[in-house]
């Protein structure tokens, strides 16, 4: 009887006490260097992975992922004279960042574009307010504070040191109360990744492509991250991290199983705008060594993807950028279905509710000219992405929409602009919105696709990863889409760029400050 009790007592020792307490210590001491692994079901089994006896390599700062966050982190870490290596599992660098739409939100910049062009007032506080409201107040205010204050210096840093060239225009996206979307000369993410890469490489950072992290080594719940296991081809090696590990590997939009596990509504039939590498395994590895994750169910649909492939090409960026200039969204019946200035989630679900794929953005040349040149308009037409019609009726005919309904919709909309009041959807009419009176008119087809995973690893304002007990995990940092609690339930367009660059920089600076392990 007594014996049985003893056995029971042993079994109900909690995982926490195994990991933190004397029992765990004695187990570990007996077995040597065992590694923390919370992914297995049984506490006893969770410490069976063994920490490598010999490391193949030692590096000061290891960064996982080569998007904005990883590049910015590597640039700052190498700038602080830490030997820095970026590990990128894909055969090309840049992740989602390099293929992204190119909008960088910032309330200010070195040229003071908004003030120059009389586009109204803005401030970090105003931006923060939009940010928190846009994410239904699920964002951690102390993290947003860091971004809104760091965004302009980070943008200027890329311009000054990275040679980034930006357009001398601003756009206002849905959910933003001010014109604060900056765009590079080419309306994509590459000019920003190239600028960050340039800064990093000039400072000595290196990128290793086709190199996948396959485990994070940590010994116990109080100790630091020790290193990573790396898989290249069929070969596994182990890298000891001398100062810190920075996780900047992005989200999990492309991991259908993971996204359905957190949000069952996002069935496999949904297209995805992301690059194929956005599969979230680093989140799971981090969780396996005790990292906390939050808000993983908040997954954003991009409302305007190319309906068949889910591609977010340059043409798919205009429905969002054009909303502030008066783009009108219509369904297959030729009717408006939403306030075009609404947030992404509202627009996406409004489209799904129309019940017929796709919907269309209607615009004219005057609106496009506010954001891009004639060349882009022509390219869109040649590639079959933009449909042109000299009149609204002709355009409607080409789209297979009843002409009279569409004409009625547009006439009514023009009247709303004139009156300054949208009686259908209560859109806030501004003087930047152009009426659809002057042809030729254009349309672009659009449909929601899985786009951004707002949830992820919990971090503090120093970009340290927080464990499930609320304490920072020593020598572990994270930045960018892999983190959670920043964009709340809904990310506003253009807000991911400053999130990635600002927190990437902070992670890099703090990682380099860690005392080097001997």
């Amino acid at each position: 009887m007594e014996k049985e009790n003893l056995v029971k007592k042993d079994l109900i020792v909690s995982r926490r006490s195994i990991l933190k307490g004397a029992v765990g210590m004695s187990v570990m001491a007996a077995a040597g260097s065992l590694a923390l692994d919370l992914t297995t079901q049984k506490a006893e089994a969770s410490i069976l992975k063994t920490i490598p006896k010999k490391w193949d390599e030692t590096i000061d700062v290891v960064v996982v992922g080569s998007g904005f966050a990883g590049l910015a982190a590597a640039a700052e870490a190498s700038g602080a004279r830490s030997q820095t290596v970026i590990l990128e599992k894909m055969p090309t660098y840049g992740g989602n960042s390099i293929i992204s739409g190119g909008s960088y939100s910032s309330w200010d910049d070195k040229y003071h574009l908004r003030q120059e062009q009389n586009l109204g007032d803005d401030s970090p506080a105003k931006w923060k307010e939009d940010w928190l409201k846009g994410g239904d107040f699920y964002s951690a205010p102390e993290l947003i504070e860091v971004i809104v204050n760091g965004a302009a210096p980070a943008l200027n840093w890329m311009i000054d040191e990275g040679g980034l060239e930006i357009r001398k225009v601003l756009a206002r996206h849905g959910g933003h109360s001010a014109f604060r979307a900056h765009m590079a000369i080419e309306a994509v993410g590459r000019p920003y990744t190239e600028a960050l890469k340039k800064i990093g490489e000039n400072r000595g950072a290196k990128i290793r492509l086709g190199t996948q992290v396959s485990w994070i080594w940590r010994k116990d719940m109080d100790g630091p991250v020790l290193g990573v296991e790396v898989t290249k081809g069929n070969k596994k090696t182990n890298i000891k991290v001398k100062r810190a590990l920075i996780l900047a590997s992005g989200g999990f939009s492309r991991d259908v199983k993971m996204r359905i596990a957190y949000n069952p509504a996002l069935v496999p039939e949904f297209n995805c705008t992301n690059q194929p590498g956005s599969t979230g395994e680093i989140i799971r590895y981090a969780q396996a060594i005790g990292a906390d994750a939050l808000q993983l169910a908040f997954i954003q649909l991009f409302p305007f993807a190319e309906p068949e492939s889910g591609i977010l090409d340059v043409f798919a960026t205009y429905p969002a950028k054009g909303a502030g200039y008066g783009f009108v969204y219509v369904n297959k019946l030729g009717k408006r279905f939403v306030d075009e200035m609404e947030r992404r989630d509202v627009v996406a679900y409004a489209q799904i509710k129309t019940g017929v794929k796709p919907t269309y953005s209607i615009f004219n040349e005057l609106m496009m000219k506010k954001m891009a040149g004639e060349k882009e308009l022509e390219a869109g037409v040649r590639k079959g992405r933009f449909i042109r019609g000299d009149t609204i009726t002709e355009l409607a005919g080409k789209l297979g929409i009843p002409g009279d309904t569409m004409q009625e919709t547009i006439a009514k909309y023009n009247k709303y602009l004139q009156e300054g009041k949208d009686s259908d959807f209560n859109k806030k009419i501004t003087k930047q919105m152009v009426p659809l009176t002057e042809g030729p008119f254009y349309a672009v087809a659009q449909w929601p696709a899985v786009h951004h995973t707002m949830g992820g690893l919990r971090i503090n304002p120093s970009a340290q990863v927080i464990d499930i007990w609320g304490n920072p995990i020593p020598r572990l940092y994270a930045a960018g889409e892999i983190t959670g609690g920043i964009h709340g339930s809904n990310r506003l367009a253009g807000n991911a760029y400053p999130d990635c660059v600002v927190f990437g920089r902070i992670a890099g600076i703090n990682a380099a400050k860690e005392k080097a392990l001997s």
Partner: protein
Amino acid sequence: MAVHKIFRNTLVALVGLVCVIYGLASEEVKARTVSTKYSCINCHRDFTAVLQKGHPPVKGKDITACLVCHPPKSTGKPELNAFSARLHRAHQCSKQKLDCLVCHTWQPARIFGLPMQKWTIGKSSRKDMDLLKQIFNSWSSSVFLDALHAKKNVTCKGCHGNTIPISEATIENDRCLSCHGGLEQLTAKTSPLEFPDRNPHKSHLGEINCTVCHHAHRESEVYCLGCHKTFQMKIPGVSIKSSKSTE
């Protein structure tokens, strides 16, 4: 001294002959992991039959007979007379696949060379040697880029440089572009007529490694199509089956 050496080599080669005959007869010319020298004469009683018209008569019974006049050049560039490429291809054709060690000398992780040559072409471990044999078969008879290069008389060193490649060897872009470029010419050559901005050599991914799409020893792939599923793009070095699916 040299004559004496040739004589000795011939003797060694004769001993090896039995093994070769056994190997060919059983049609099981598998990778061997021991260094053994073989002779040519079990197949070539008389070299004249396989030599070009006007080629001076050749005496000897193994590869050393050729090396007297055709010393290996380690320039890393395709040779003008393509001796090495042709010799390799002829012995790796669909009818027969001779073991590397019929001609080459090998001591695991120490020497990979040729008889009578003082230098080594590189070091090949047992594991690398297995891979080397496998890839060499691919070079001589696959549908991949390696075989396309072979047909143009480009041997391993054309891409891999002077020493035999080890596993995980990669090719830098400059190496490819030294024959296929510069990048600008290549970009111009592959510019699509209808949509010039859908040029795989000048894409929104910036300057990427050639090897992202162009794999030498396995099926090449158009990386673009991973996302741009509707694009019409072709690439050399794929099997007929997959080239049809991308058309």
